[in-house]
């Protein structure tokens, strides 16, 4: 009976191979980085810190050219997927795609139809001060870019649409955007009436 209990309660170290395997398993199954102290907790027997470090180095080279990297961060060691896999892995648990807010869409429209424009221009047209988020989102999306500075006090940036904007909207050029004048001529006036300046000028 005793040997059975013994085997059950103690992790018997057969060799350094076993220690190394346990270190690897601990790293692969841990959601947080593991410190040398953590690794020591795995064993009943005392394993020298230097032994653990040496074995971690071995594991690191075992995984060279494989799918994961053993890296050291401030709180310890962890396995990390090669960064080239990250984008694909994100598709497994995609963040919910949110729609652009009305504000962002309006800013995009102003940049598209009135380019090049400064932030001040956008604010003047919309009649409200602009949340910097709106332009940031459009810059990140690479639909809008800064093409220079306007030489007025403060040298504000000039925003214009990009090639990617045209690509993503399936346009060859900005001129292919729907024309507001065409719209007012062809469609019922109700939507923009009674005060559409463009149509009054045209007709």
């Amino acid at each position, binding site marked *: 009976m005793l040997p059975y209990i013994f085997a059950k309660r103690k992790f018997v170290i057969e060799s350094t191979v076993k220690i190394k395997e346990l270190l690897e398993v601990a790293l692969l199954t841990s959601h947080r980085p593991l410190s040398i102290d953590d690794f020591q907790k795995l064993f009943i027997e005392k394993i020298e810190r230097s032994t653990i470090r040496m074995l971690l180095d071995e594991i690191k080279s075992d995984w060279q050219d494989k799918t994961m990297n053993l890296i050291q961060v401030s709180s310890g060691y962890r396995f990390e997927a090669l960064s080239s896999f990250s984008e694909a892995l994100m598709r497994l648990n995609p963040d919910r795609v949110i729609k652009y807010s009305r504000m962002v869409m309006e800013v995009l429209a102003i940049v598209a139809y009135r380019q090049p424009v400064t932030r001040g221009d956008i604010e003047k047209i919309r009649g409200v001060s602009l949340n910097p988020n709106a332009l940031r989102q459009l810059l990140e999306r690479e639909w809008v870019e800064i093409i220079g500075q306007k*030489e007025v006090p403060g040298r504000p940036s000039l925003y214009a649409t990009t090639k990617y904007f045209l690509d993503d909207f399936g346009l060859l050029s900005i001129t292919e955007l729907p024309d507001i004048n065409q719209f007012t001529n062809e469609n019922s006036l109700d939507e923009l009436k009674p005060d559409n300046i463009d149509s009054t000028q045209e007709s």
Partner: protein
Amino acid sequence: MNEQSDTDQLLPKVYGEHIGLLPQDLYIPPDALEVYLDSFEGPLDLLLYLIRKNNIDILDIPMANLTAQYMVYVEKMKAIKLELAADYLLMSAMLIEIKSRMLLPTPESDEGEELDPRAELVRKLVEYELMKSAAQELEQIPQLGKDRIVANAYFEKVIETKYPDVSVDELFNAWKNVIKRAKQFDNHKISRSELSVREHMTIILKSLVEKDLVEFSSFFNAEKDPIPKLVVCFLAILELTKERLIKINQQEPCSPIYLQRESS
């Protein structure tokens, strides 16, 4: 069978004739008694324990003996605990009823089979015992987090890989909104301006970011470009100058005209 049941077989069997005999295992230190009685999951669990303890054949239960033993336990539980689950009392009543029905001639079922008054109780005991064992079996299965540890390595999250889709129509609607609303501000009017002019303004400005000084004529390809395009390009240059985004320079009469950004 194991050692435990061997010892049990050496003990005197407690069938019907030993009615009223206190089960020996009731001699328990008082403070342990509560814990002990509490360890039963209910009357069926207690009955099963008594049956197994006394090595009773579950298909031929001596009702008088079992009922007596059960009652002793229930009395003990009542004495210790103020609140005893009603289910225990219900079971007492059921046991007594079965016991008394055993004294009457056995009735017959529709199919002519003899109906044992104990049948229903036995069926319940067998089913509960089965589920009890099932629970023990479940506990033996390696469980996630206890005996099963799964891979959970780290990967660097990429932020904002997915963007919302936007159609040209949506963009146009946003523009219509902007115009509609702009009308409400008296101090600012949206004047009509050709999109192509705006586009050329951007093109010219972009080329002036790449090179400081660009020759005026390089924007015009009189042989290839249609006249409207030449006009639009010229208008764009005028508009850029008017908005003070570019400067037009000429060193001396008839020398080349250069465009440059306002700053440089």
